[in-house]
């Protein structure tokens, strides 16, 4: 489908402009307005995250297939000279690096990880709500414009509190999103879901997600997840030393994939912005 304002970059990324970009910002504004219901303070984190942060939750063993690492050349003059004296990039677009500097970072795979690192080793005596939007990176076997991209925009609202506060947040967020999609007329439903674990049958976290339905996805036309709610229990509270009333904090989040919402608009209302609800 030809969508005005969309240019697809074959390495799994899209360029947005015009009305399509305006709609992306409109959607993010709507999600930000939802966040304000909890007084969630907006945060702008970088897109590069220390790998050590994700190692605290054993992320790399669960999702190695999704990781994208920022790699840099070793800064030694002789190494850089060897790089430029060779052919840095060949005709088929492949980089031929010389020695690489040690890799200590990863490109953000989900916006909310920064939040737990940011609040690490802190104690709270009341619930805390934050929101953030980031460009996220997930390596996939294939890509699809607006629906499955190497880099994409994710808005999240995060709750840090007690078990009851986290559960209430998810219930309220679900109801708020239901009102929003009913208002614009998108055919969606919530489904129990699991994360895309590597070798799921060997991963205890996958087993746990199967038996403890803590993740639910908002699915458009029975095929495309455009948002998800996630109850993490004390997974992040323990890993990052965040406590609430002397116990590991419970956390929950709701996440919105901005480009996927655009795809839902295009498929439901057509490619022309004039036909989209506002």
């Amino acid at each position, binding site marked *: 489908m030809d969508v005005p304002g969309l240019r697809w970059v074959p390495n799994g990324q899209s360029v947005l402009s015009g009305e399509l970009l305006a709609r992306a910002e409109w959607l993010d504004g709507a999600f930000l307005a939802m966040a304000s219901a909890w007084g969630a303070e907006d945060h702008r984190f970088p897109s590069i995250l220390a790998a050590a942060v994700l190692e605290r939750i054993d992320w790399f063993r669960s999702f190695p297939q999704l990781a994208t690492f920022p790699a840099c050349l070793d800064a030694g003059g002789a190494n850089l000279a060897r790089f430029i004296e060779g052919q840095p990039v060949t005709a088929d677009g492949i980089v031929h690096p010389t020695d690489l500097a040690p890799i200590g970072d990863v490109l953000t795979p989900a916006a909310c990880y920064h939040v737990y690192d940011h609040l690490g080793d802190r104690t709270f005596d009341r619930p805390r709500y934050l929101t953030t939007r980031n460009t996220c990176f997930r390596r996939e076997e294939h890509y699809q414009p607006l629906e499955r991209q190497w880099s994409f925009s994710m808005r999240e609202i995060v709750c840090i509190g007690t*078990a009851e506060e986290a559960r209430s947040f998810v219930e309220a967020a679900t109801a708020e999103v239901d009102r929003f999609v009913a208002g614009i007329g998108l055919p969606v439903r919530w489904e*129990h879901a699991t994360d895309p674990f590597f070798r799921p*049958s060997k991963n*205890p*976290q996958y*087993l*746990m997600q*199967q*038996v*403890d*339905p803590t993740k639910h996805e908002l699915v458009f036309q029975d095929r495309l997840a455009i948002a998800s709610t996630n109850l993490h*229990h*004390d*997974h992040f509270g323990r890993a990052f030393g965040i406590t609430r009333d002397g116990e590991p904090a419970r956390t929950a989040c709701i996440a919105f994939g901005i480009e996927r919402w655009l795809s839902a608009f295009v498929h439901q209302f057509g490619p022309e912005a004039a036909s989209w609800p506002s």
Partner: protein
Amino acid sequence: MTEAEAREALRAWIREHNPDVPAGEPADGTRLIERRYLTSLQVADLLLYIEELRQAPVDPTRLKPGVFASIDDIYGAFF
């Protein structure tokens, strides 16, 4: 194994893996995962123990949501 013996064996397993569980806990209806008496690191071990108790294998790919929520739910799903 009687129903009472199975429930007591499950209760003892939870206590053994959670030394800080208060006296009298977990009751049959206690929410094991919400109370963090059962974590993702323990659930595979509990599954093996359930297989041992009931003397029959469990297919982990066919587990339904909620089957480990409480001792009541575990007993209802596997025994």
